[in-house]
């Protein structure tokens, strides 16, 4: 009970503090003589946002890049040693390789699954379509940790002779297989792929919503015209519909790509990086929390950042184009 009261007070303090800040700032500016008020006010309005982003994002990013050239206590300059050391470790290279697999499989898997649902559900009645879509969409509300628990249970393993309570092993043994400890089977990276399933399962709803909206925006005349010209359904889809929704496909792909690049929670919960499933997001946490090796952890983040830079440039260019057409 005391805890609950404290919680309420904490919430009020956090939210109220924010409001108070603006009221005070605004009050101060309105005291200023007219012209100064107009000059200063924009900065009062954007100021707090800029301060937030600068202190908690921009400055730390620069500082992290700086720290990546220092030893783990941040005292001695070591040049590129952290990078060289990491890139020479087979366990780190393994994590990089897994990340690459994730980047290849997950965004593509999400787009394909989302497209399938969007296209097929479009054939149903409106009610049927909305029902199907809400089922696929619902996992979007579930956290990576929650979803990992859900799927850990699906992949659960009991030794032979005991009842299999994991759904996958139950199906597998029903068709005559021997029970498999799925999460530990790293031949052909099977376990990594099973973890990717979780991510695809979570993100398909997102892809479906965007792609479905895009498909409905495709002018019916173009589809009708293709059909009249004798194109099959498949031809119509790939040659008429897909080109018209391509920009949405790219949007979905890039969004999921960035998310996948940073993937951490699923691996942390399911394996902790063991059984050959480690990825850089998880390796970063291991270095930072378990080993307290700030220099190496910083170097890992900088590598992530470098990987994101092309997307950043793309994003800014897209934005400029969009602004130009406004």
């Amino acid at each position, binding site marked *: 009970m005391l805890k609950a009261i404290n919680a309420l007070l904490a*919430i009020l303090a*956090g*939210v109220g503090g*924010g*409001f108070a800040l*603006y009221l005070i700032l605004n009050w101060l500016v309105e005291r200023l003589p007219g012209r100064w008020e107009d000059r200063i006010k924009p900065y009062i*309005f*954007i100021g707090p*946002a*800029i301060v*937030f*982003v600068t*202190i*908690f*994002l921009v400055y730390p*990013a620069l*500082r*992290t890049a700086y720290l990546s050239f220092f030893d783990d206590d941040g005292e001695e300059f070591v040049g590129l040693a952290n990078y060289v050391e990491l890139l020479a470790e087979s366990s780190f290279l393994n994590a990089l390789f897994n990340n690459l697999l994730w980047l290849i499989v997950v965004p593509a898997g999400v787009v394909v699954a989302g497209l399938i*649902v969007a296209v*097929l559900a479009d*054939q*149903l009645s*409106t009610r049927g379509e909305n029902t199907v879509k809400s*089922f*696929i969409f619902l*996992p*979007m*509300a*579930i*956290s*990576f*940790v*929650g979803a990992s628990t859900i799927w*850990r*249970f*699906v992949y*659960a393993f009991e030794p032979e002779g005991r009842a*299999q*309570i994991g*759904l996958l092993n139950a199906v597998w043994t029903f068709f005559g297989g021997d029970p498999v400890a799925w999460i530990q089977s790293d031949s052909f990276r099977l376990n990594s792929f099973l973890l990717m399933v979780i991510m695809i*399962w979570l993100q398909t709803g997102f892809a479906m*919503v*965007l792609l479905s*909206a895009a498909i*409905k925006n495709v002018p019916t005349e173009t589809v009708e015209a293709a059909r009249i010209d004798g194109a099959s*359904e498949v031809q119509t889809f790939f040659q008429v519909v897909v080109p018209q929704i391509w920009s*949405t496909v790219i949007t979905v792909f890039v*969004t999921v790509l960035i998310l996948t690049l*940073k993937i951490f*929670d699923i691996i942390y*919960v399911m394996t902790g990086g063991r059984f050959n499933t480690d990825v850089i997001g998880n390796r970063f946490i291991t270095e*930072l929390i378990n080993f307290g090796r700030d220099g190496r952890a910083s170097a890992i*983040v*900088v590598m*992530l950042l470098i990987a*994101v830079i092309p997307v*950043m440039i793309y*994003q800014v260019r897209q*934005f400029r184009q*969009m602004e130009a057409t406004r």
Partner: protein
Amino acid sequence: MTTTTPPLAPETEPEPPAKPSGGKPRRGVSTIIVRIALLVMVLVWTIPTIGLLVTSGREPEVVSNSGWWSVLSSPLDFTQWTAQNYEEVFTARGMGNAFLNSLVVTIPATVIPILVAAFAAYAFTFMKFPGRDVFFIVLVGLLVVPLQVAFIPLLQIFGEIGIVGTFPAVWLAHAAFGMPLAVYLLRNYMEGLPGEVIESAKVDGASHFVTFWRLIIPMSTPALAAYAIFQFLWVWNDLLVALIFLGPGDNEVVTVNLSTLVGTLGSDWHLLTAAAFITMIVPMIVFLSLQRYFVRGLTAGSVKG
């Protein structure tokens, strides 16, 4: 929240949840195949969660000796059902405490960035000042920066002012990490509001503060709601930031608690399933009740070529 988000722009009409019926192509044989394919997908997307829910309400010994699907044969045998698992997880395993903490973390971490971003978005849209475009381009670039870049220096800063492991640390971190997206979405939305309204307010002598508060905020409700849902889900479902800045212990949130339980309870599935379900209830309710805004936020803008 499990996604980053594409741009939101007000010019595109949001996809309505219900479309005018009729006019859909229907082709005989293929509809059956379509229906079967969709059924299979719906099953794959729902059964794992149903299994979790069913298991969380079963007696421990039945859970470990039979698959959850065996309840299908005798769902009315009430000896197999129990609320015991929830009780144990909630009290003995700290999930009740974590649940409160999650609320304490999530509500300010949602409200603060909205407030701050709304002011900034207003200035970016309706005020002219030197440096405006540069600031905004930087924000756009920051949309995709991985949060991890900020952790190590932030831990040092928070350590120096002594707030590591406390709620203000996560509020500030989440507010900052959510800021670029919030400003971006809201500004794109405000850009589409009718300019005449603002002009006439100015002519009537309304100050920026009044215009913002009385006109722009009410008119921006859809965008504010969409962002609020994103940020709420994202913060509630976040593990990474909570793990770094709050960690396990008295202030831990539900995701951290659950991830610890997965590590320690291993295969006590009756408890793990109940714990997982507790972490999912709030986002599910928020999501289901506000889905309309959420979908609108996702579809608007990104649809146009």
